[in-house]
């Protein structure tokens, strides 16, 4: 409790300092307004804020409900029938790695009203909740299984009596992660959908005026909604589970930590691999087939492949895509490496100063749950619309989750190992270099896998909203030009790149270990 009070006091002090700076220095006020100005426009523009806020919250809530329901049911199925999970690995990784911003335009093409936002919010919350539930159901006391099996209980009895209830804390942790993500999904779904009410639409409409108080006001509003969702489920989690669940991000486990395919023969594995890779495309084809959407606005997998390979204007499309990728990928890579490196350095330095770590970690946890579009106003005001803004955006969205994960790595270094260095008269620095850093380095890969898709998403959001370059802009422009083939092709290519980046990090990890 005292920690909470301390954090609140810190935030209050920062706000006071900000207010003072904005009042005395016009240069500061022109860029980041002042807290009192932001508050004032909340009051004067309440008639705008309230419907926009409600629009986003409504979509996020429906998506949250639907996505999590599917996620929990899917996790139960995967747990009960492990081969189903292997078959769905491709779908799961695609959903984990996809940059949601590329799905928005595709959904807007197919669906109307608020459906694109709701579906995107549901797609975004699916993976963390599914993964958390599955891990929770798998990670159980093996003795409990023996007890059930001794009385002739099979897989169903184990599921019913042990797994479901054991997973409850993990499910709640997943929902806690999913709540702010559903807000992000709803907002990203508003981009390019033409929907009237929603914080994303509000932000898009306000970018042109560049009024600092308004832009930051929208950013704060989005953050507040997301944090409230996080807070509600953190509270429910504490209440139901009794003991406080450690502040872990177990919900963000990457897909391969939950797959267990080693008990299959080579032939079975090969067959499952083929199914896993083809299933996302089969589902894509099937959904379009069932919904009977015109193939002109919603081409299937074969049509999109043909478009990229040999369709009319295929050469042009390839050139445009390659040019956009040439702009996007280096920035995403830069953001990824920069963000992780910064997170590692800060996390290791805070080991030397535990008090500093205690102050930073809650802030990082909070900012981690902040919808990344809420960063757009700040980045725009501070860095305008040039390349630096895009890189800063990528670094910021990478830094916070990576920092939280790496500090956990540092926190898990066995005390005995550290004390060993001290017993021989070693300094804190030696302790850090000899024990903590090598120990936590293994978390680098876990962090990299987790944030690689985020780096791409961060860059694409910045490109769409700010810089007008790269893949993000290509998608936005194609949507405006009604070039549906390109919208789909761009979406598929960016998902494939994201999955490839994830798999590449996994491969490097296996090689190094």
């Amino acid at each position: 409790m005292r920690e909470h009070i301390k954090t609140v006091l810190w935030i209050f002090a920062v706000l006071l300092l900000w207010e003072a700076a904005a009042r005395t220095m016009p240069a500061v006020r022109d860029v980041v307004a002042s807290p009192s100005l932001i508050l004032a426009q909340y009051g004067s523009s309440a008639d705008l804020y309230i419907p926009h806020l409600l629009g986003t919250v409504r979509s996020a809530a429906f998506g949250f409900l639907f996505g999590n329901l599917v996620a929990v049911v899917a996790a139960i199925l995967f747990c009960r029938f492990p081969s189903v999970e292997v078959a769905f690995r491709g779908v799961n990784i695609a959903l984990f790695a996809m940059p949601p911003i590329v799905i928005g335009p595709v959904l807007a093409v197919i669906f109307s009203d608020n459906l694109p936002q709701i579906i995107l919010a549901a797609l975004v919350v699916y993976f963390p909740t599914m993964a958390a539930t599955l891990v929770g159901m798998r990670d159980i006391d093996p003795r409990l299984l023996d007890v059930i099996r001794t009385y002739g209980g099979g897989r169903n009895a184990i599921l019913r009596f042990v797994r479901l209830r054991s997973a409850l804390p993990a499910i709640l942790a997943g929902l806690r992660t999913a709540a702010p993500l559903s807000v992000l999904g709803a907002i990203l779904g508003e981009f390019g959908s033409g929907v009237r009410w929603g914080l994303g639409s509000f932000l898009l409409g306000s970018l042109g005026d560049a009024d600092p108080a308004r832009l930051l006001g929208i950013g704060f509003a989005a953050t507040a909604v997301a944090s409230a969702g996080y807070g509600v489920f953190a509270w429910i989690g504490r209440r139901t589970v009794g003991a406080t669940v450690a502040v872990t991000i177990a919900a963000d486990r990457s897909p391969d930590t939950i797959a267990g395919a080693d008990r299959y023969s080579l032939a079975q594995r090969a067959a499952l691999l083929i199914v896993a890779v083809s299933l996302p495309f089969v589902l894509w084809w099937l959904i379009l087939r069932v919904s009977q959407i015109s193939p002109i606005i919603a081409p299937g997998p074969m049509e999109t492949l043909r478009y990229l390979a040999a369709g009319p204007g295929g050469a042009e499309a390839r050139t445009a895509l390659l040019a956009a990728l040439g702009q996007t990928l280096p920035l995403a890579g830069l953001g990824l490496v920069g963000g992780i490196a910064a997170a590692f350095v800060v996390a290791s330095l805070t080991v030397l100063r535990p008090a500093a770590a205690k102050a930073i970690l809650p802030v990082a946890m909070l900012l981690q749950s902040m919808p990344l579009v809420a960063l757009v106003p700040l980045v725009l005001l501070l860095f305008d619309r040039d390349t630096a803004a895009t890189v800063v955006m990528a670094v910021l969205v990478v830094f916070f989750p990576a920092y939280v994960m790496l500090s956990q790595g540092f926190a898990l270094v066995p005390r005995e190992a550290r004390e060993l260095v001290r017993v021989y008269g070693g300094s804190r620095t030696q302790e850090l270099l000899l024990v903590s850093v090598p120990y936590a380095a293994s978390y680098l890969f876990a962090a990299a896998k987790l944030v690689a898709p985020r780096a791409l998403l961060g860059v694409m959001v910045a490109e769409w909203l700010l810089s007008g370059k790269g893949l993000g802009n290509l998608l936005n422009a194609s949507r405006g030009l009604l070039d549906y083939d390109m919208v789909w092709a761009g979406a598929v290519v960016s998902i494939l790149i994201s999955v490839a980046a994830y798999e590449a990090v996994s491969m490097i990890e296996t090689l190094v270990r």
Partner: protein
Amino acid sequence: MGDEQPAAQAHQPADLSIEGVSKTFHARGRSVLALSSITLKIERGSFVALIGPSGCGKSTLLRLVAGLEEPDDGAILVRNETPHSFRARGELGIAFQDPALLPWRTVRRNVGLPLQVLGKKRQADRERIDALIELVGLTGYADALPGQLSGGMRQRVAIARALVTNPSMLLLDEPFGALDQILRRSMNLELRRIWMGSATTALLVTHSIDEAAFLADAVVVMNGGPGRIIDHIAIPFPRPRAPGLFAAPEFHTLCDRLAAALEPGGAR
């Protein structure tokens, strides 16, 4: 409980028959022979203790009897049935070193769990469950959660759970291993009292020589690398056995003999 039959009758047919059983574990490309052609027969209503050094396969043998592992070779028959069909009838009771209680269930619901798994009506057995809770000395704790109990109390819940199906075969895998010596001894007395009142055949895996000597009719001594039976020692003390037996000189002589049998190469 067991008011149907008197306990520990002699010259009964073999209740548990283990015939030339071997078990190999494979891990990371290496295989370890955990049990090598074990043969053991246990009479109905008798209490047999398995002792031996860590890793000699005692627990594996017990898990084979419970049907939690399958033997590579040989056969196990419990009352002329395979472990799987025997346990499906609810005739098996088991307690582990760890009480393995479901943390979200009260004592009463934990004790009733086997009945639920077996698909029996728990409501009808409510009185039975409460009687068992009383038997293990937990009256008044029926609605407590495992987290509110001490280690010894949790272990007693596990014992009550093992008895709830009125089992004809009771498997105990170091059920008191995690308890301190004093608590362990009082649990030994408790177990002796419970077993005396039932017609159950019991197989106890333990590390404790005096626990084995006090509770069992016969002690089977095992040795590791690979796991095999090296001695079979009858315990001659008449029943009922009083707590004073722990202090008797002949008890200590027997314990010394068991300890000698456990020494490497000390069996014969």
